[in-house]
């Protein structure tokens, strides 16, 4: 075989190998984001913590010092409490997070997001949320047995106005 023919064959083999590499790497090896017997518990909510300091009644003397358009009877510091969430799965703590309020003056919502892998099956889930630094203990709680199908995504949501903590 002439060396020119060998070079052409080499060239073709090279392009075929390149094409094969692309065909393979663009779909193989297959990827399993979670094991087949796993499910996910996603904890996610936005929540305004309670005010860090209580509103105070303004005395008439204090009010008198303010310009007339700012004479509100109570003064409320804007900063919010951080929000703490704890998740227990079958009695053991799997997640604990304290989320700071957003915004430069720390007066926005605190946000929580976590995706927790769970083995499929029934589990006792206990979620507690504390949203005020001015009182002790948790302000919201939810406990129950939750069924996780394999690969199912269940979501812990929280809205103080609409029924507190929910799992769906």
């Amino acid at each position, binding site marked *: 075989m002439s060396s020119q023919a060998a070079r052409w064959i080499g060239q073709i083999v090279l392009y075929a190998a390149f*094409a094969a590499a692309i065909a393979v790497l663009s779909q193989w090896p297959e990827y399993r984001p979670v094991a087949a017997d796993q499910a996910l518990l996603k904890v996610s909510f*936005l929540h305004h913590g309670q005010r860090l300091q209580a509103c105070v009644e303004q005395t008439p003397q204090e009010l008198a010092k303010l310009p007339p358009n700012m004479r509100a009877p109570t003064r409320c510091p804007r900063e919010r409490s951080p929000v703490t969430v704890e998740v227990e799965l079958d009695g053991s703590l799997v997640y604990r997070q304290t989320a700071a309020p957003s915004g430069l003056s720390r007066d926005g919502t605190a946000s929580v*997001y976590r995706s927790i892998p769970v083995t499929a099956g029934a589990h006792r889930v206990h979620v507690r949320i504390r949203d005020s630094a001015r009182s002790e203990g948790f302000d919201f709680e939810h406990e129950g047995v939750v069924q996780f199908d394999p690969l199912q995504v269940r979501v812990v949501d929280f809205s103080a106005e609409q029924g507190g903590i929910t799992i769906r």
Partner: protein
Amino acid sequence: MNAPRPLPRLQAAWAWCEDRLDLASPRLNPLRHLGSIALLMFWVLVASGIYLYAMIDTSVDDAHASIDRLSREQWYLGGLLRSMHRYAADVLVLTTVLHLLREWSFGRFRRFRAATWWTGVALLPLITVSAIGGFWLNWDQLGQYSAIATAEWLDWWPLFASPFTRNFLGAASISDRLFSLFVFVHIGVPLLMVFGLWFHLRRLAHAAVWPPRPMLWTMLSLLLGLAAVAPVLSHAPADLTRVPEVLAYDWILLFVHPLVTVTSSTAVWLATLGLLALLLLLPFWRGAAVAAPAVAEVDPAHCSGCRRCVADCPYDAIRMVEHPTRRGFALAEVDADACASCGICVGSCPSSTPFRSMQHLRTGIDMPQQPIDALRRALRERLGQASAKSALVVFGCDHAAPVRALEAGDVAAFSLICSGMLPPSFIEYALRDGAAGVLVATCRDGGCAFRLGQRWTAQRLAREREPALRATVPTEKFACVAAGPGDILAVSEALARLRAQTTGETRSQVAVESPAR
């Protein structure tokens, strides 16, 4: 004349691979045309993307079904284009990374190339964003996985009051508004890329925006072949209440998500930002680079304003201004920041002819580190020596085969900054001065350190480009050979052929000389 610098190891390794892949022809060697292949892939993406956009439904609920229908019912057109769209993205990413590695290993990021380098780096995040975002538009399980993984990664930045991940919770599907944002990103970012590419190529004259024909058809057939043999199909529609079990995964475009999973968001953000910072700072790194060489200098007394240097300069570094003393004449002016110090303009200038009678040869535009006068002197001196009776003259290039290794009693070798620096009249001059033949050794097609030197030299010697070698020079008296830096053997073989040609022997009678080391 300065001795050629030893190649840094990285460059030598790359050049070695590149030379090995010149199989059928350098024009089919992908390593020599990475930038233009990447650009070709970009245009394939644009063209196939426009067709897909016209054919599919871009709403959350119908996107998946419409794309799936296209793949099945219109497999011969829409289906093929869809698959080509994906494979072109794969090839674009691979060739861009190789293109970056090549320019890096050749040290092509400093001085006059810095602007090209920086705009290249800026293209990287744009390519990544449009490639990953493309998967979301299909809104199948793979798109769902990628969108959520991306949102989780972006939420590492505590910038937004409402995290991105909240868009992908529980509810059966995401909002149409969010989906419109996906579409917007996947069309808007490539538009930004068009601007980026324009800036990327702005400083390069005659940029290779298309690969050579054989390469172009090879790459298009390769995409079509891939699309026909392994068509891209959708996964099941997205379902936010479930994690997809198995994904046929595109590791070229989506490698970042598993990387975040096995390391952490923090690690991948640090690596990404660190790498980008490193790439952006690279032009400031002096490394082993020697001091910047002198740039081309114009001599107003010898510039006639003919513009040939403007036409040939690979980096658009020359413009014409009004001649300061000769009314109505133009004068070349070099932009020192853009000049690559390649000397190609010296080869273009009609005033560079050595036949001029002046004692000290001066030309319109010259390189202070290797003036054209020094070349004429050295040539005269060498051909004047008694041992040089019927000598062969070799003109080579500091960036290609080290021709000086061939220097012998009857071989006079000269290495220029770039072979494109050689005014063709020097060939005629050497022959008149007693040389038996002249060999011009350039780098290989697509291997020029200054992009265009090899091309202009080949065209000038073939009398296709001004200043052309005069038609009166007998063809058997000169030859041109293209050889890479590690390829001195090819030059010495060409020299042996030329020797045979000039003495009238046939090629088979000549034993190939072994190269002098």
